């Protein structure tokens, strides 16, 4: 590790720590790569002082599920830790690959890989979960798709539970959604797109929560996007199943009408849903059924996206826009700012057993400083690489001013 930078004082910002509930104008003191104090004491004379008046100071975002370890994109987005999906080339199904992936972003962004639940993500043979955990895997994931065999899924959950590893799943019934690129509805029918019913999600969730319940396993559904799926999660939680739910901005901001004109940037996985489901996602965020907000960062080349809708690769680049899009939830009165920041950092950090997500003394100095109201327009110039986003051209508010990792200022904007 490089030499620790000079002490740093973030002065006069609205400091929000979702972990402790602190929300007040204060100074944050950093020394030796950790947080050493918070309050209104003046900074020591040898400290670098960053004036944060009018800005929000919060724990660096912990992005619960990205498909590319993209350090630059994370810095632009205020993300200091990223949980990496196993869908890499080759898939992260081996302890050595996990270990390698873990080193990818350091020191700028820490990448926390999820190990593939099955070899090659093929859904048949278990990967070496225990060895992968020793190599640094923070959890297990089924990848972009669910595991078709209930028997394999049952065994995976039982085995992962023994290591207390959280299992991250993609909730779409694999057989029912085979070949589908959209949700069944008037829009898919008009456009002539192969579609699967929205309840394919609830079916997958019902199976997986029942299996997790039987095994006492921890289950995290990376994206819950339908009213029916959310009801399954609520019912499971009510009876004590250890299940959490996440979502990405596409599913609370857009519905199936975005597909008009065959916009392949709107080809997401799971596909966009009807308006009733979108509203249910907003309600799920409000009532806490959905506790994790993530980017699902999945940059794609123009070649992969400039295709007929059904042939285009699903996914959106999103690390850069995660915070700005999420702040819409605060402005719409769905979440308070501290709760949103919790869903973006504290909750995912806890889920995967990561440091961060807190401004307590002794925590790593991973911080984001942002201007909650600064307006900007989403466009390619604000992306680290591929800018495949359905929000291209959208005016948003909320700009990252500093991304600080271990006391180093990595991004100033």
């Amino acid at each position: 590790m490089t030499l620790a930078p000079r002490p740093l004082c973030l002065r006069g910002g609205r400091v929000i720590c979702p972990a402790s509930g602190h929300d007040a104008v204060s100074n944050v003191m950093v020394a030796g790569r950790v947080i050493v104090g918070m309050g209104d004491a003046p900074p020591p004379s040898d400290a670098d002082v960053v004036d944060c008046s009018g800005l929000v100071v919060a724990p660096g975002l912990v992005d619960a599920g990205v498909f590319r370890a993209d350090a630059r994109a994370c810095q632009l987005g205020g993300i200091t830790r990223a949980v990496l999906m196993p869908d890499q080339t080759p898939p992260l199904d081996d302890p050595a690959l996990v270990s390698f992936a873990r080193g990818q972003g350091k020191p700028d962004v820490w990448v926390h890989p999820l190990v593939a639940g099955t070899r090659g993500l093929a859904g048949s043979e278990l990967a070496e979960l225990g060895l992968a955990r020793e190599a640094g895997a923070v959890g297990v994931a089924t990848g972009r798709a669910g595991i078709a065999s209930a028997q394999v899924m049952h065994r995976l959950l039982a085995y992962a539970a023994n290591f207390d590893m959280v299992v991250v799943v993609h909730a779409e019934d694999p057989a029912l959604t085979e070949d589908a690129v959209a949700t069944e509805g008037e829009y898919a029918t008009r456009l002539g797109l192969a579609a699967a019913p929205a309840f394919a999600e609830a079916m997958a969730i019902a199976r997986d929560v029942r299996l997790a319940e039987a095994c006492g396993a921890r289950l995290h559904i990376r994206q819950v996007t339908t009213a029916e799926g959310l009801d399954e999660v609520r019912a499971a939680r009510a009876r004590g199943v250890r299940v959490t739910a996440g979502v990405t901005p596409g599913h609370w901001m857009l519905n199936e009408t975005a597909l008009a004109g065959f916009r392949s940037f709107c080809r997401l996985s799971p596909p966009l849903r009807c308006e009733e489901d979108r509203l249910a996602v907003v309600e799920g965020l409000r009532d806490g059924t959905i506790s994790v907000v993530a980017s699902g960062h999945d940059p794609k080349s123009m070649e992969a996206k400039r295709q007929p809708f059904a042939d285009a690769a699903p996914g959106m680049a999103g690390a850069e826009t995660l915070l700005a899009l999420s702040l819409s939830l605060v402005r719409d009165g769905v979440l308070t700012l501290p709760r949103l920041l919790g869903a973006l950092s504290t909750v995912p950090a806890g889920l995967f057993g990561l440091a961060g997500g807190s401004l307590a003394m002794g925590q790593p100095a991973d911080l984001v400083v942002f201007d909650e109201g600064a307006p900007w327009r989403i466009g390619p110039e604000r992306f680290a690489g591929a800018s495949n986003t359905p929000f291209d051209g959208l005016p948003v508010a909320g700009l990252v001013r500093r991304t600080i990792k271990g006391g180093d200022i990595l991004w100033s904007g």
Partner: protein
Amino acid sequence: MAETHSSAHSPAHPALAGGAHPFPHRHLLALSALKPWEVRYLLSEAEAWVDYNRAVSRGDHRLAGMTQINAFFEPSTRTALSFEIAGKRLGADVVNLGVSGSSVKKGETLLDTALTLDAMRPDVIVIRHGSSGAVQLIAEKLGCPVLNAGDGRHEHPTQALLDALTIRRRKGRIEGLTVAICGDILHSRVARSNFQLLASLGAKVRAVAPPTLMPPFIEGLGVDPYTDMAAGLDGVDVVMMLRLQTERMVGAFLPSTREYFRFFGLTEARLARAKPDVLVMHPGPMNRGVEIESAIADDIVRSAVTEQVEMGVAVRMACLDVLTRARRGISGWTA
């Protein structure tokens, strides 16, 4: 011919009131994008070409010197042939690019293929592609008018236009008629284009199909769904059969062709439920004994199958003519 066109250009033409031209579209991609009067304009233009095609002497080569590319990324016999004849009859130089000869097989992306075609400086391109929305995607990259000859399950506009022309000529109108479209609705672009067109011209449209081949939420398109063939044909003026593709058996959509014919084949007994002067249509190629009884297909009074083919050439001539008018510098037409 000259008379017909001059009337369309004359200020007296209702669509031209206020100086607008009657078909303000650069491409023909989807009927969902057209207004009813724009559809009627194309039909009236096509009407004139029907008479022209039946005449012995055919000297109108208004597309002479223009290059028409037929790019078919999906196999086609009759549509490709119909577009080729339509172009040649208007004097265009027609070049056909079939799927086997295309670089798509060699891994070239669709957009690279589009740019390559564009660099050849064609004057009009006719495109068929197996993926919904693909023709629109290519059209955005091309500097010339594009005619959609079928994109995936999305639309097949010239087919619906020729169907409408056939109905209008046989029945004298479209408004107020009840039309049943029967068969594999789920995978059919012909059905989707016809839903749009017939509904916009005031027909009542029914979709008749087994539940596995009926698209969900089809009521949203203004279509009444029927899963019982006899009930679906009750009192209809027009029956439009769709081709059943045998690969549908593999996907567990249907158990067998004989079971399909038993419940959804067009037989005399079922057709008796329709109006006595019912018109039977099929976009071809027909599977006799699978979706339609042979005798019905051959009945020259009720069946309009060969007439549909004839109307196809006229409709495509009209579309090629209208879409190239701006390039040909016809006064009042802009791209």
